[in-house]
């Protein structure tokens, strides 16, 4: 059932959208076409303004003095433009500098990317390219975990990690990544590999290559687009994850940014709005940069793989 949003074939490098043939009734005059185009852009631009407003407001507020945020100055522009909020935000909270929170977030995100790439690609190869008894049943179970509310496992998982003395370490947050627990990425790679021609493996087998060779020297290089989407999304999901760190981390020195932000909200009780918003901006900055750099990959990944944001 989940294959329905994945109609496209994998393409090497960037994937270009397949444009439907242009619908162009000859009866329409040039003037009418131009008017339609103008209306389209007016509507679309107005919508863009509404959609981007919260982000713009956030960035604008991060440069304003506290008194002006939610005060009388409703415009996005302020004449009292300053970096003060960022200076305060960079000082951090609870005796830990914001740079430390950044480093923590980065360690977790890179760990998540490495773990997911390694485990998901290997598992996906088994599902997509090896015939073995029980495969379809296991594949079905993997799909079922996509729909499973993960809250049903967090309590026993917590108990296990607590008994192993691993609470307040990064292990509970990362081990699942190395065991392909994010079924979505396995599914994405299976879909991608299934679309690669079967002759590739057959030819390699005749040449005497085993599965390890086929996987490392044929599949992995061809899977680059799927590996890139997986890296981008596992990075961003890990970067934004809140519940996992909230459950497992107790010492502020180990907090990633989302937890640091919560601490900031708790401790300042909204007294320093400007710094709070500046810190929110800083926390989102890597995601925004990722988006600007990889937007094609991200949006194409969503449209071909049905990935959630």
């Amino acid at each position, binding site marked *: 059932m989940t294959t329905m949003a994945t109609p496209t074939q994998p393409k090497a490098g960037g994937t270009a959208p397949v444009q439907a043939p242009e619908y162009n009734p000859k009866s329409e005059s040039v003037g009418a076409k131009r008017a339609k185009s103008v209306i389209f852009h007016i509507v679309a631009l107005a919508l863009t303004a509404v959609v981007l407003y919260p982000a713009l*407001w956030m960035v604008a507020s991060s440069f304003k003095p506290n008194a002006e945020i939610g005060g009388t100055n409703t415009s996005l522009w302020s004449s009292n433009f300053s970096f003060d909020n960022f200076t305060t935000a960079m000082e951090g909270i609870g005796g830990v500098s914001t740079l430390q929170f950044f480093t923590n977030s980065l360690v977790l995100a890179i760990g998540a990317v490495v773990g997911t790439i390694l485990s998901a690609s290997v598992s996906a190869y088994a599902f997509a390219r090896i015939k073995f008894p029980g495969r379809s049943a296991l594949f079905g179970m993997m799909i079922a975990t996509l729909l499973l509310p*993960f809250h049903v496992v967090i309590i026993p998982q917590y108990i296990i990690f607590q008994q192993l003395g691993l609470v307040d370490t990064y292990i509970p947050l990362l081990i699942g990544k190395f065991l392909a627990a994010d079924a979505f990425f396995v599914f994405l790679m299976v879909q991608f590999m299934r679309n690669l021609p079967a002759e590739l493996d057959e030819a390699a087998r005749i040449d005497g290559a085993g599965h390890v060779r086929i996987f490392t020297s044929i599949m992995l290089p061809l899977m680059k687009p799927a590996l890139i989407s997986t890296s981008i999304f596992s990075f961003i999901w890990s970067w934004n994850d809140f519940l996992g760190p909230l459950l497992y981390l107790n010492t502020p020195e180990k907090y990633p940014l989302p937890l640091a932000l919560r601490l900031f909200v708790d401790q300042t009780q909204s007294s320093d709005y400007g710094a709070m918003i500046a810190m929110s901006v800083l926390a989102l900055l890597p995601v925004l940069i990722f988006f600007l750099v990889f937007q094609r990959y991200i949006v194409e990944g969503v449209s071909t793989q049905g990935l959630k944001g």
Partner: protein
Amino acid sequence: MTQSPTLSRRSSSSSSPPLPRKSRQRGADARAGYTFLLPWLLGFIALTVGPMISSLYLSFTNYNLFEPPKWIGLDNYTTLFQDERFLQSVGVTLSYVVFGTPLKLAAALAVAMLLNSKRKGQGFYRSAFYAPSLIGASVSIAIVWKAMFGDSGPVDQGLSFFGINLGGWVGNPSMTMPMMILLTVWQFGAPMVIFLAGLKQIPADLYEAASMDGAGPVRKFFNITWPMLSPVIFFNLLMETIHAFQIFASAYIISNGEGGPAGSTLFYTLYLYLRGFSDFRMGYASAMAWLLVVVVGIITLIFFKTSKSWVHYSGDSK
């Protein structure tokens, strides 16, 4: 894909005389298959199946993490339905799912249809509308949302400009749900991009033929777009509904982890978290988790059952 059981059994026996090449290959494949699958299999058993079974067991016990679990039968489940906070969390979550998801999908479909034409700037708009989906569930945006909808925040000020004086939405129990729904509708970009990919698969000549028969835009929508897009609509509806049940971070941040004001943002998962990790009533929280699994499972089943009547899979659409 399906294996004949006799073959695989034969290939795994070691005492047999030289096997035909094919069977030996199958035995090797079976070993290779499970070897490659090992990471996922380990995770599946240790992090999903095992914990699911143990949380099912815990849901019939009283367990606080420090003393051994005490079997209490169905007590947790019966207590749930007398727990006013629990019932409130069900109500909050249901109204979020029932109003938020269709609104979000309607916005996604409408904008996808607007963008589904070859025009300059289409790529820019698509990216701009998608961006909120990437950041919408983050703590940062929850903080911004809270500030924007707070007393004399930009939303309040914008509305008072039109003579509507609602005050801050954050502190008003009857306005927090609309605020949360707006937050999810704001993230319409992800389903929109998927709709857009689906719309591009609809052959343009269908619309041309309909135009020649004199069909207007409304008839074209109901007779071509809707049925042709129904598999994608189904996919989005299922995924968005399941995700909506699991909203957590935004609710936690906006309500300072309490679900207030007056329990109006006490979402199901937030209450589960509070019960399990703040009160350490882990048996009770496990019962809540299993109830969620059952409810989501039933909803998924209903979706699949009813889909037969409105989702059309055309054989040649691939």
